[in-house]
């Protein structure tokens, strides 16, 4: 996995260190838990084990088992409990070990958390963060590899963050914890060891603000989560062909920074949208439609989409690797758009 170019880095204020995405997540949680006693963590193997991905290691030592709570394997139950705690003055951060297991908690997320504020006419609120994973290529097969973030972006009342860099992950998670709404926070499980610059100083990143990870002139690659790295590698390939690609990372798919996407589309006139969810009815469809509606007269060609193959994620590496967008695939679609195939 390549690292983002200089443009993808955070502002160089004060001391900047290279840390992993897992460390960035852990720092965000620790800082918010120090700042606000209402913040607590809940999930399977979150305490001493620090989750299978070790993202939460050490937090229980600082904050104790009252604030880093190991639960039974009851996703619906502990998400529901977190909703109730959020409605009554706490700010829970729930860990769902694999994004695939969100299905077990769908009623609590979609019918309860997302609806409470609206149904109560604004009287109740649910300041809840659900951290979970997306992403394939870990050879984990169909029930541990899905990217289900589109489902939640479909539901009014929910917000959905899909960070790609340690810098973005830390700043967005802090914002998510301070937000008064339920936020689904998706981390690509293959990115936890990705390193990137993160300032020592405290910062937050607002939701709904896209980030141009690499500026370019000829084609826009809109990419989410780990697909940002795929797009950046595609941009390198395209550069060899003399095509200048701009990589735009929405960072949150709801709220969505339509303005930045459309500005880039107007500038380049050609757009490829890349996301690791299934292509059909997915994030790529929504982003492509939005760009087409808003920038139609400035487009030189139809917006193209690259998503995960519409099959359950298979185990065998030979099969699985075909299901996820690759830099070559993205570059090839971009070349076609530019009439250079």
């Amino acid at each position, binding site marked *: 996995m390549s690292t983002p170019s200089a443009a993808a880095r955070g502002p160089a204020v004060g001391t900047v260190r290279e840390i992993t995405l897992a460390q960035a997540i852990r720092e965000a949680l620790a800082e918010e838990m120090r700042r606000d006693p209402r913040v607590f963590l809940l999930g399977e193997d979150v305490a001493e084990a620090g989750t299978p991905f070790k993202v939460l290691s050490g937090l229980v030592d600082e904050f104790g088992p009252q604030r880093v709570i190991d639960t039974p394997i009851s996703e619906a139950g502990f998400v529901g409990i977190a909703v*109730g705690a959020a409605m009554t003055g706490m700010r829970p951060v729930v860990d769902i070990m694999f994004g695939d297991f969100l299905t077990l908690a769908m009623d609590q997320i979609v019918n309860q958390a997302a609806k409470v504020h609206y149904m109560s006419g604004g009287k109740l609120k649910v300041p809840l963060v659900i951290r979970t994973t997306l992403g394939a290529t870990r050879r984990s097969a169909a029930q541990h590899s899905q990217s289900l973030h589109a489902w939640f972006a479909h539901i*009014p009342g929910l917000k959905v963050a899909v960070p790609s860099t340690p810098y973005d992950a830390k700043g967005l998670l802090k914002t998510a914890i301070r937000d008064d709404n339920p936020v689904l926070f998706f981390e690509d499980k293959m990115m936890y060891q990705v390193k990137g610059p993160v300032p020592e100083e405290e910062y937050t990143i607002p939701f709904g603000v896209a980030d141009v990870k690499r500026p370019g002139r000829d084609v826009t690659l809109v990419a989410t989560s780990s697909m940002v790295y795929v797009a950046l590698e595609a941009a390198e390939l395209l550069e060899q062909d003399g095509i200048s690609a701009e990589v735009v990372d929405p960072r949150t798919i709801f709220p969505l920074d339509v303005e930045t996407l459309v500005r880039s589309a107007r500038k380049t006139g050609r757009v490829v949208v890349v996301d690791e969810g299934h292509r059909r009815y997915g994030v790529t469809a929504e982003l492509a439609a939005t760009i087409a509606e808003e920038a139609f007269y400035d487009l030189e060609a139809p917006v193209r989409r690259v998503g995960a193959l519409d099959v359950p994620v298979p185990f065998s590496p030979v099969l699985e690797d075909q299901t996820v967008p690759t830099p070559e695939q993205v570059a090839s679609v971009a070349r076609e758009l530019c009439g250079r195939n």
Partner: protein
Amino acid sequence: MHTPVTVNQAELPEEVQDLSAVDWLRMYRLMATIRAFEEQVNELYLSRRMPGLAHLYIGEEAVAVGVCEALRPEDTITSTHRGHGHCLAKGARVDRMFCELLGKAEGYCRGKGGSMHIADPESGNLGANAIVGGSAGIATGAALSAKLRGTDQVSVCFFGEGALGQGLLYEVMNMASLWKLPVVYVCENNLYNEYTHYRETTAGDILARPRAFGIPAEEVDGQDVRQVLAAARRAVARARRGDGPSFLLCNTYRYFGHHVGDVDRSYYRSREEEETWKAQRDPLKLLRGWMTAAGLASPEEFEAAERAAREEVAQGVAYALQAPYPDPSEVTQHVYA
């Protein structure tokens, strides 16, 4: 069917012996308010002045009133699709309830919730829920929250026996017991999951289910407000002491259909069964009979209470009928906090 008993003259349970005639009359009045409210809802619905769905609580009043009498204002409840009684018993106002049922701006949820979603945090009501069993997590989470915040608030989860079919309930009872959370699970067994007798849907011994998690569970005559209150006080005291959750199985009966349109009920229950419950097991009659026999109130006092309840309901509905609807622009408000 449970064995019909007429007026229970037995000794008052120890937990409620401190209550005076004034207290019992207040509970009688509250039950009468709920009944009059629901009769008015029925009327509104049948006269097509109320949109949507309505599930009436008539026949079950002693459960909500007995349980909520054991609570403090800052304690919380979650309710169900059959929730009007819970909301009123926890302290909601009749006029604002009607406003919500009619989709008016002054409703508890500004008309966005309706009959099945009334929430009133000011009276400790975290909301009725139209997903059967859906609030078990919320109620248990409110109890975890109370514990983490270091208050001695207690959380009550009302649900029908139909919710015994939902896995969520067992997940959260497990955690409530593990973590000794201050929550009381109140199962209102009115014998029917919609149009199906609960014995066709519920295997084994209901009380054995919470007990398997180490949760004390007891069966309560849900038509006798004295027994409900006594059991609720035991459970609430245990929760407030920090000793953990309890489970109350309240046997009760709904007099009307599952919802207002459920008129032909002959395929799932007999008219005779309905008449027996109304004649022999009515919560208002039982309380009145006992209070009269014990010399706690005169016929005039009961009639005055009933009249006051009817007047409150008449005024409330009149107010709501003329109250304004929300501005159409409110449709996009409150999606996000």
